């Protein structure tokens, strides 16, 4: 009885426990650094000098903003692309254009899921966009590439969502005379969207974390900002610790909202 309760507690709060543990470990590391090097005060002063007096926080604000822009815009673009791909993939393949479109979608998904996002960023920024005659600012290029990338992942999520909607819904829509496209838009996709909302939340978290590589093409995000701060001051420990903390706070916040949303959704389902 008590044992079962303990298990339930673990299962319910494992993410909190994990977070607390990670924080504790980080704190220990911090303490260790103070103890070991004894130069902590000096390092902290150096950090403050670069971060506060030299207005490093301005750059951090830009970094936060860019991370947010890339992740949110990437998610939205990815959602549109992913939904489109998922819908194309469930069209009954009677006509030739449909089959070609479906082949293309499969190819697209394979490409974007089969290569690291850093590689996609580099190829896009240094090869594809220049070839097309586009000179995009780094952040815009990142938005595009992350949009294209998450489109591939979201298409798979969305396809699962569409498959989880009762086939009778599409049938009924077609039976009253709605075309396939309108049936999808008005009936199936909205229901699929509700089913995949929690998964989309997790996809968003993944996206936020993945944006840490945008420095490769010169976009200033949270990571890049602290990297530069470190190399300017020749002191990396504190900037990187602060950076890690910032990511944890952001991700934990989003995760909290995702859980909250999930609970609300399941409650409305139960009432139904």
């Amino acid at each position, binding site marked *: 009885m008590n044992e079962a309760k303990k298990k339930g507690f673990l299962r319910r709060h494992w993410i909190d426990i994990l977070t607390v543990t990670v924080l504790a470990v980080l704190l220990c590391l911090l303490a260790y650094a103070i103890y070991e090097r004894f130069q902590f005060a000096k390092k902290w002063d150096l950090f403050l000098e670069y971060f506060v007096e030299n207005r490093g926080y301005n750059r951090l604000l830009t970094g936060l903003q860019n991370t947010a822009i890339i992740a949110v815009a990437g998610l939205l673009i990815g959602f549109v692309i992913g939904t489109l791909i998922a819908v194309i993939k469930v069209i009954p393949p009677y006509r030739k254009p449909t089959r070609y479109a479906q082949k293309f979608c499969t190819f697209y998904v394979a490409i974007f899921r089969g290569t690291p996002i850093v590689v996609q960023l580099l190829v896009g920024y240094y090869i594809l966009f220049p070839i097309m005659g586009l000179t995009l600012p780094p952040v815009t290029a990142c938005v595009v590439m992350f949009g294209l990338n998450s489109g591939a992942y979201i298409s798979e999520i969305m396809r699962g969502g569409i498959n989880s909607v009762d086939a*009778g819904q599409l049938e009924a829509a077609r*039976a009253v*005379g709605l*075309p396939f496209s309108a049936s999808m838009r*008005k009936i199936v996709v*909205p229901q699929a969207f509700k089913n995949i909302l929690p998964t989309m939340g997790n996809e968003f978290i993944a996206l936020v974390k993945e944006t840490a590589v945008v420095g490769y093409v010169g976009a200033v995000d949270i990571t890049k900002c602290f990297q530069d701060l470190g190399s300017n001051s020749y002191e990396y420990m504190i900037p990187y610790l602060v950076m890690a903390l910032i990511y944890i706070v952001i991700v934990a916040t989003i995760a909290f909202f995702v859980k909250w949303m999930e609970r609300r959704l399941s409650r409305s389902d139960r009432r139904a």
Partner: protein
Amino acid sequence: MTDVHKGDIVIETKKLTKSYGSLVVLDSIDEVILEGEKVAIIGPSGSGKSTFLRCLNCMEDPTSGAVYFDGVNIADTRVDINRQREHIGMVFQSFNLFANKTVLENIMLAPVYLQTRRLRETRRKNLLRRIGNLFRRRKKPLLPVTDTRQTIEERARKKAEELLCRIGLQEKRDSYPSTLSGGQKQRIAIIRALAMNPRVMLFDEPTSALDPEMVGEVLDLIKQLAQEGMTMVIVTHEMGFAREVADRILFMYGGKIAEQGSPAELFEHPKNPRTQQFLRSVL
């Protein structure tokens, strides 16, 4: 737009065949549904009743053969099937109300969508004509546009509310389907089809998924429609109901219409041994 049939034929199938791989589910069926007729389809499970019904509005594409609705072969892939399905109401065994729409939205969705689309098309044509008229000496007249998005919606809402009133569910107009009983769902599914003013209604075992105490209310509504002269094709296991409502009974067996006739003939004096056997097992 090949054959045009004169007279009262609403739906006609010619050599209608459907197979899944090597399994022949419908075997070259020739059948005619006349205006105002109530046709009941009975037969053992797996005999192809649902498939036949679903071929009548091309929810399943026939493997070969033709289905004429109002003289148009709707099995022809060049025909805009959505234009035709508007006039063929369909009611499913599992109701299939749109789960993400309220009751009222369920009923209004298709009429509003289709009329709005027609309005948009007319406006587009008028725009083209207006542009063309700039260069024409003899001006082409514009197509009349009397509707707006608002009037279309208003009309659909009025009609939907009337229909809801008719089945006594007006207080459910803003509820979601998941909060309704099976009988309520099915009656709403029926008026959702009615809201399109269909020429013919297809029912696929409309009461099979219902708790016994709700079968009556749904059958009563269908009977009312029958009395009002609606043309209908009903796949059913309710023999009493079929006998009472139908003008003609089709008995299907093995993908064919094995026997047909008036209820009196078919129920009292079945000729085909399969029919006799089936009736013995269900009556």
